[in-house]
């Protein structure tokens, strides 16, 4: 991949991020923060690459730590977001009013 291709991808991703987020209602800000938090856990891909290519105890130890942190970030983030959003399930408007 050429440098310019990488920079292009990164900058376009930033603009998409701005565009997509500007429309989220305040009600969903907490789940949103938590979901984006889980998405940056994509660094786990980096952790896997590092641990997978590791040779020697130092690299392995660093790789294990990176993978463990990344997994916690991804799994914990998505699970907790799902738990929050489960409570936002659609229900019929209350008839007791």
């Amino acid at each position, binding site marked *: 991949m050429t440098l310019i291709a990488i920079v292009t*991808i990164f900058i376009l991703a930033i603009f998409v991020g701005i565009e997509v987020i500007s429309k989220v209602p305040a009600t969903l800000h907490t789940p949103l923060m938590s979901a984006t938090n889980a998405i940056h856990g994509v*660094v786990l891909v980096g952790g896997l690459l590092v641990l997978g290519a590791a040779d020697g105890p130092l690299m392995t130890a660093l790789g294990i730590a990176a993978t463990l942190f990344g997994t916690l970030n991804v799994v914990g983030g998505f699970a907790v977001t799902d738990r929050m959003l489960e409570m936002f399930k659609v229900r019929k408007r209350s008839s007791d009013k």
Partner: protein
Amino acid sequence: MNPDITNVAYLFAAVCFIVALKLMNSPVTARRGNRLAMVGMAVALVVTLFHPDIKPANLPIIAVTVLIGGVLGIASARRIQMTAMPQMVALLNGLGGGAVCLVALVEFLKTGQSSAPPDAVHGITTILSAIIGSMSFSGSLVAFGKLQEWLPGRPITFKGQQTINILLLVVILALALAVLAFGAATLPVFIGLVVCSLILGVSAVLPIGGADMPVVISLLNSFTGCAAGLAGFVLLNTALLIGGGLVGASGLILTLQMCVAMNRPLGNVLFGAVGSVIASSGQSAFAGRQPKSFSEEDAAILLSNSESVVIVPGYGMAVAQAQHQVKEMAAKLMAMGIDVKYAIHPVAGRMPGHMNVLLAEADVPYDQLYELEQINPLFPETDVVLVIGANDVVNPAARYDKSSPIYGMPILDVDKAKTVIVLKRSMNPGFAGVENELFLMDNTVMVFGNAKTTVTKITSALDKY
């Protein structure tokens, strides 16, 4: 695996992330969005396992590590109380930042082992992701400590703090240049760089008050996103580039939106040290007044004689886990023919939207929740406002007292209602450490005690009327 297949899979993951964020626009589709992001993430991770760099001999250790992390992640996500959500996000964010920093460190060590000529872009992005990742790691941990109340919530300041932060930044820049200039021979310098960044993360977050932590977490979320994106430059990995870029940008937008909700520029949040000067001025017209204390019975009489009630839930209600009791009380009032609304301040709770999550947990229907702009014009016609464990968001000083640290923050104008009942544990100031003269006004009565117990007592007292 063919690199094309890998890249197509990463593209698929990226599309999932984008569509997921799009689906987060509405409560109806938000959960589907989150699930879609999970699918994208799973695809990206599985495909990575087939990367040519990954040695099959290392697969078992990967499996074990991921399994341990996964079990721990799910267990803590299941157990965590909804009230503790902000610190959970802070902690997970810190771990993400730590992961980025570790990846950068390994990449730096690898350049020392390879004979390939150093590449400036690779070097710069490695250094940047290490700096931002470690700042996000230590900063998030401090934010976690403050929210968890392991650290004092009020700003921790000392003389010359800003100077030290600027010095740290200069040292970090100098070390970064040294690493760039002398390359892989500079492992101690690189370690020094990481250590200085960790310290800067701590010293930047310490002076920020507990009430501003959500903004800080959101900003650090954006930081970790950027760091992950930069790690994408280092590893030439499109999944990291796009995922990181998306979160970096969205986190920043979210941060700025929160600042708008509090009517404070971001710089003021970060460097203003709110609450460090507690308003101890005796200039208040209410100085020396004592609050009127009511019993739960009296409060029940007031409520039952009203036609319209607005409930203002705050963090105190969340801490006492009183949302279910509040909902029961509201149901009883509605059964008596009284109009009940909930007023939700944009920063109620400790995170924007936090209160909505808590009330959704208690099955409070959406159509009873009113936002600040909708409810404020209705207060003058409201008979009783019931403030449950909220403080700073109903402090009238925000409207006129320029010396108040929360001056300018849009508040719920509850003082304009005919009667205000405040349920509170004690007269202690709120999270921002500011006195609230609402409690001393003529139309305000206080019912002291734990929100859950008080609301339960009021509800049972309502039966008599």
